[in-house]
Structures are given as structure tokens and as C-alpha cells.
């Protein structure tokens, strides 16, 4: 069964550093998402992306965040200058069409020290 692949599984960084989280969605998916989950809390929507543009974004997704699909296969989330409160599990998800279920990757655990 096709899977959403996320790398790395764990990322440790110093406060103020830039990080890039990477995702390889399922090949025939067209809509892509990033979510984050702080330990013990719910899964929070960050951004949705379609046709090389952001479709929607949450209040969390401020100017420090950006997304890109640079080569038609990878989908990345960049945090320009990490803060302690960015420490969370980040999930990538994909969708074949609107109003269909999302398939999630296994996440990248980001720890900002």
C-alpha cells in the first residue's frame, strides 16, 4: 500500500536555526497538508497546498513558516528561525481529491533546544 514518507524521523536544532522537514506524498495525490502535534495535545492544522500555492493556512503558520514542492515529488516545510515552542511532531498528509480522506505520514519529531 502506498505510504506518505517523512524524513527525518527526529530533528534536533538550536533555537534560531532554520529547519526543513521533508515529505514524499503518495504519487497520485494532488493536495498536501502540514499539521503539528504538541505532546499530548490534538493535531493542529498548519497549511494546505494545491497547484503550487497555499490554499489555506492557520494562525500558527506565520512568516517564519513556508512550504514548497520544489521538484514535483517532495513537499517541504521550512521554519526560518525556530523557537522553543516550535517543538512538536510535524505530520505531512496528502489527498487525492478534495473532500476525500487524508493520508498521513508517521511524522517528524522536532526538538528545539
Amino acid at each position, binding site marked *: 500500500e502506498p505510504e*506518505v514518507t517523512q524524513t527525518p524521523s527526529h530533528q534536533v536544532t538550536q533555537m534560531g536555526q532554520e529547519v526543513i522537514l521533508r515529505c514524499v506524498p503518495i504519487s497520485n495525490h494532488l*493536495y498536501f*497538508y502540514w*499539521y503539528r502535534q504538541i505532546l499530548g*495535545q*490534538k*493535531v*493542529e*492544522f498548519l497549511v*494546505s497546498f*494545491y497547484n503550487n500555492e497555499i*490554499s*489555506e493556512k492557520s494562525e500558527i503558520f506565520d512568516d517564519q513558516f513556508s512550504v514548497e514542492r520544489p521538484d514535483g515529488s517532495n513537499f517541504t516545510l521550512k521554519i526560518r528561525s525556530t523557537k522553543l515552542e516550535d517543538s512538536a511532531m510535524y*505530520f505531512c*498528509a496528502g489527498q487525492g481529491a*478534495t*473532500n476525500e*480522506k*487524508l*493520508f*498521513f*505520514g*508517521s*511524522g517528524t519529531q522536532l526538538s528545539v533546544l
Partner: protein
Amino acid sequence: GESVGLHLPTLSVQEGDNSIINCAYSNSASDYFIWYKQESGKGPQFIIDIRSNMDKRQGQRVTVLLNKTVKHLSLQIAATQPGDSAVYFCAEFYSSYKLIFGSGTRLLVRP
């Protein structure tokens, strides 16, 4: 504002019993709902979905009920097994490009 919430943070059931997990949603315009299961250290895993033109949908050992009048969803798991222990989230398509998760219910299955 957007709000998809759950009534019980933790549900403990005996193995073999049926489990019922409840969820309230706030956006009456939402027309598609999904239940996800999340095991420790993993991403959300699709269980079952339902669209607003239906009241009930059944899968293998799972049933989702939708009551649009009171904006309520429930997930029923029949003959709960130890492998069902996880956190369960309801999620609501708040718009075409925004799936919002509820706060989750932890299901514990006692042997």
C-alpha cells in the same frame, strides 16, 4: 469559531465489550467527517468516514453515527480488542482545504 471537541478524554473498556467514543462539532456547514486512530509515536490512521447525507456508516467492527441536528458524531467499536488501544480523533472538513481535528479520546482496553 472552529471547534471539534470530545466529551471524554479517556475511555476504559473491557476486552470484548463495545466502545463508544463521542464528538461534537461546531460548524453546521461541514459536510464530511473522518475518524482517525493514533497509536503512540505514529501518524493518524484513517478508520472510517461519513458524509452529511448519511446518518450511519459501517465498516469492519466500526460504525460511525452522525446526528446533524445536534452536531454530534460517534464512533462505535464492536468487540474491542487490545489492539484498539489508542487515541481516537474525530475530524471535520471545515472547508474544502482544511481538516480540523478534535481534542482526542484515549481508549484503554483492559484484558
